[in-house]
């Protein structure tokens, strides 16, 4: 589909309106994959959408990069398997941290120990899944899986300092934001738009960032939070 558009693309003469299209064609001729080049342009858009989720909707999650990183990881694992795997490791990490709470050693050393235990528990799971020929998730890519484990540990550690209510909320928000990032990065429609009009997408991303960056109104969730004050 994308390739078809790509090969049929008429570029015209190089100018301010089509220089990115030239760059993409040049990149492909250099041996880069088309998906990779498109992803490079979609990544800033995904970040813009995550910041939109924060400043307009009020989904705080875990900063800006964590959800996008997870979104990238989901690209190779698939959204649902990725989410399930992430939740699983996350709960496992919480459990291990909780079990080791009485162990009085330095914080970072402790977290390293937590990671070791989590990996040791995950290993039999991997082998077990292999028996059922469900190796797709783990063969897809090693690094995304590692990203999910590490992000999960980061999230788990922060959760333990919060009250359970806030902890659950932060996790849910992170999941929503990462799904949002995944959706931007994997959307075929958006990929096609980027391929056809990369310059316009860049300008729109800049406009989005600046607009969101200047927004001082209430966030959507704040309308709920302050509903009683608003009614007064």
């Amino acid at each position, binding site marked *: 589909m994308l390739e078809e558009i790509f090969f049929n693309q008429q570029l015209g003469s190089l100018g301010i309106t089509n220089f990115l299209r030239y760059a993409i064609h040049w990149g492909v001729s250099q041996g880069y994959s088309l998906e990779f080049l498109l992803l490079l342009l979609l990544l800033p858009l995904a970040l813009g959408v995550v910041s939109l989720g924060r400043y307009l909707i009020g989904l705080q999650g875990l900063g800006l990069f964590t959800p996008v990183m997870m979104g990238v990881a989901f690209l190779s694992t698939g959204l649902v398997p990725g989410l399930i795997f992430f939740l699983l490791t996350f709960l496992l990490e919480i459990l291990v941290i909780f079990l080791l709470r009485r162990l009085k050693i330095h914080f970072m050393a402790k977290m390293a120990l937590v990671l070791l235990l989590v990996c040791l528990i995950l290993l039999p799971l991997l082998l077990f899944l292999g028996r059922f020929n469900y190796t797709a998730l783990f063969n897809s890519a090693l690094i995304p899986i590692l990203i999910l484990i590490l992000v999960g540990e980061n999230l788990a550690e922060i959760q333990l300092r919060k009250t359970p209510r806030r902890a659950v909320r932060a996790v849910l928000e992170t999941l929503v934001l990462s799904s949002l990032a995944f959706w931007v990065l994997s959307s075929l429609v958006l990929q096609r738009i980027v391929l056809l009009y990369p310059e316009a997408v860049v300008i729109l991303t800049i406009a989005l960032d600046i607009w969101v960056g200047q927004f*001082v109104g209430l966030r959507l969730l704040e*309308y709920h939070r302050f509903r009683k004050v*608003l009614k007064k």
Partner: protein
Amino acid sequence: MINAGKVLGLNARNRLFLATNKKEGRRIADSKLLTKRILRKNHLPTPKILAVFKNPQAIMTFPWETLPDNFVLKPSKGFGGQGVMMVKKKAKWAGEWYLMDGRLVTIKDLRFHALEILSGRFSLHNSMDVAFIEERIKIQKIFAKYVWHGVPDIRVIVFNKVPVAAMLRLPTKESLGKSNLHQGAIGVGVDLATGITTHGVLNGRFIKYIPGTKRKINGLKIPEWNKILTLAVRAQEAVPSLGYLGIDIVLDKNRGPMILELNARPGLEIQNANLAPLKKRLERVEGLEVKDVEHGVRIAKALFMERFANRVMAEEGIKTIGSLELVKIVAADGHKEEIWAKIDTGAWRTSIDETLAKKLGLLEEKNILWTKTWKSSLGKEVRPTIELTFYLAGRKIKTVAGVANRQNLRRLMIVGRRDLEGFLIKP
């Protein structure tokens, strides 16, 4: 959603109001030790420091067994009450204490916790930190029945030297004696004029009673309220590089109000606790010329008082008044001047004639809250806003009034809607 523009959201707080906090001020507020040093320099009361640990050696060589029955071990750069260890009382053996939640700790545990603090476990971005031990505040009797262990504190938000909102924070079992709302403490709104509590929020829910008890949240009068507000404004004077800040004040049984810490990014839940939108109040106060501490406190009281008086009056029964009423204005020297005033529901604020106000001594600088330049068809004129107390149909009304030239108008004073709550007007 009429109030959408009046409620302060995170976006507006961060971009519009936190922008008035300079880097230097944030540096002070983010370090509790530095804050204490500056407060002491300005002769503002703050709980005593019993020990400071800048390196592991200090922790190992410190004579822990000499510590009193109760104390608090804190990270200097901690936030949201994280990493605070509150020691409640001595246990059976020397060198053992009970924590707030009843856990037993030994010197070894305390040392370990202090080392964790140093390694940055509780500081922003896990950067290196300093640990210190602070004396525990003795709780005032009046609060004892409202908290599950721990000491409540009063958060006052000050902007441009004017207190704009206050909240009493009550530790709960969930918050383990800490008074941070994020840890599960109760936030209780406080009327700025009287120091009487109004509404309560716990974990984002509105509550009327302390959970598990039949104790009402509203109606508690916080002692030494004036001193608390004064202290809050003086704290901002001590750190002028913070334009918008939260000041946490504790009330010690013997020594009265003391400043616990400053907060350069005070949270927004205070709006729910007070059921009052903050942005409107901030905009009201922005740019006012506040002469001194006392002036700032007076502006706050006059502008943001809850209408308790009127609520009490409403309970007494609605009073009926006509469109012309004989009011008694309280002059500066205390005597009462009777004049006929027009009851004007078309005006929001009460307005009084300039000459009359001058005659009554109400235009003294001490009594003027602020002055504004008005542009009208008659050109520019300067109109002061003053504090005014008057009696209307037997009720005492304390309010703010605009001053204008009313010499060629029929009545020297009009009473606006703001002061007519609890009245029925029969023209």
